[in-house]
């Protein structure tokens, strides 16, 4: 065991009109602190804040913004960035602080307020995570994932119906999650008839543009019982990178950084992923849930689409993937997503996930990525 997570909180995800990331963070923080009444905020040694872009709110220095919002000044409070992996990077930074002995308790925060901007501006802000040659040539992020999808279809025979099934499953899970951005069930026909964003990906293959925040409190394991009897444990973690541009990879449909991050995290956790019954993975686009399930070893390379086709990734299937609804339905406030995944796992491992509770879940995996699977952060959790 590396560290304990003694509490977590998450704002409602969605289009949160009239709220800035300050208020969204406050919502997540208050829920988190209510779970651990014995924790005095003065015991928090440092804060790490994951946020994707300064464009949405014309704001950097999110560390300070978070710290001053809940009276944590003058504690160290630092923003970390890795596009949509910022949340898991904040968690990783908090874990490293605690493991090193620098602090006993560290707060990890993820935030993003995206919906005040137009889709064109959000598209452009996300394009900053690709490489200059891709940006100059107008490759949007949906098109980059679409190119992974086209290669996967060509090589392995996955279909647009398989992708649609990922969206349908995640919307069903989202309908069971009262904090999800999208709580409406959809059909395969709804996905296939939705507007093309970047062929073959359609609107319902893409996660929504969302506002939200999620937080987690990382604690030295020896101290955890002072605050809670039901902490969850971080058993393994790893991060890995790939080329910034998709075009520089020999195998477009193999998320190599994700495969390495999973292998390394398992090595640290001294377990394999067959024990894992829950995985929150980065389905920013439906194809990515398929690719990441291959990288995690839930399916062989080139066979990820067979999992969804056979219903094995539904809640209480062979491996429950994205019981929260995933990015697709829970919502995708970029910087918050990595910690929103942790929030779901925190609830699931404590048996507090309500209608979407996975039974007999002792271990869970979170896979959060940024760019075109260019930075991937994995965490393995247990009870």
């Amino acid at each position, binding site marked *: 065991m590396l560290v304990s997570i003694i509490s977590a909180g998450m704002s409602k995800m969605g289009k949160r009109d009239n709220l800035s990331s300050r208020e969204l963070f406050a919502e997540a923080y208050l829920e988190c602190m209510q779970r651990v009444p014995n924790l005095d905020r003065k015991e928090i040694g440092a804060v790490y804040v994951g946020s994707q872009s300064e464009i949405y709110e014309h704001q950097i220095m999110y560390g300070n913004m978070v710290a001053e919002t809940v009276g944590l000044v003058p504690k160290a409070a630092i923003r970390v960035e890795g596009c949509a992996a910022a949340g898991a990077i904040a968690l990783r930074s908090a874990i490293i602080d605690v493991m090193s002995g620098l602090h006993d308790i560290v707060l990890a925060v993820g935030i993003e307020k995206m919906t005040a901007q137009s*889709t*064109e*501006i959000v*598209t*452009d802000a996300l*394009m900053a995570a690709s*490489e*200059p*040659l*891709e940006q*100059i*040539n*107008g*490759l*949007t992020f*949906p*098109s*980059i994932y*679409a*190119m*992974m999808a*086209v*290669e996967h279809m*060509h090589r392995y025979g996955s279909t647009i119906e398989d992708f649609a099934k990922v969206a349908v499953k995640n919307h069903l899970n989202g309908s069971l999650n009262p904090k999800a951005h999208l709580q409406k069930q959809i059909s395969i026909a709804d996905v296939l008839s939705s*507007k*093309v*964003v*970047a*062929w*073959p*990906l359609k609107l319902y293959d893409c996660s929504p543009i969302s506002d939200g925040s999620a937080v987690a409190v990382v604690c030295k394991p020896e101290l955890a019982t002072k605050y809670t009897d039901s902490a969850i444990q971080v058993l393994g973690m790893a991060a890995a990178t790939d080329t910034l*541009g*998709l*075009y*520089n990879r020999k195998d*477009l449909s193999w998320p190599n950084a994700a495969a390495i991050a999973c292998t390394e995290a398992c090595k640290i956790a001294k377990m394999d992923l067959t024990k894992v019954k829950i995985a929150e993975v980065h389905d920013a686009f439906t194809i990515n849930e398929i690719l990441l399930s291959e990288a995690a070893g839930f399916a062989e390379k080139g066979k990820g689409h067979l999992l969804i086709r056979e219903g094995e990734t539904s809640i209480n299937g062979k491996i429950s993937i994205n019981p929260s609804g995933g990015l697709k339905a829970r919502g995708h406030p970029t910087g918050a997503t990595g910690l929103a995944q942790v929030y779901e796992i925190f609830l699931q491992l404590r048996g507090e996930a309500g209608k979407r509770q996975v039974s007999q879940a002792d271990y869970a995996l979170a896979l959060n990525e940024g760019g075109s699977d260019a930075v991937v952060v994995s965490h393995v959790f247990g009870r």
Partner: protein
Amino acid sequence: MADNFSIKGFYENVANGGLRVPHCRNCQNYVMPPTSICANCLSTDLEWAKISRKGRVVSFSEIHVSNKKFQRRTPYVVSIVETEEGVRLPGIIKDATARELRIGDTVSISVSSEDGSPGYFFNILKNS
């Protein structure tokens, strides 16, 4: 030829009608994206090497939602193309739709100085 090995230098060459990428004289690696150091051997002994104007489609997509800069062009088809030397380039396939394209199709690469152009384009030569 541009004297600086960089993306800026790459586009200076393109503006003069040339399609060249930095090539490492030490390990023969093509340095992509164009920059001043070879990531393979860390040599800075580079040269601008001409690359083939012919390539093959590695993957593609048709974009219907874009940013402001590309709005006028939308919808448009983007692709990753591999040249005969094995250099990969992202870019736009002119006058194409996703429906008519297949992985493995052959394209020619043309440089263009037209207004608002990203510098080079792919054109379908032969469907695979």
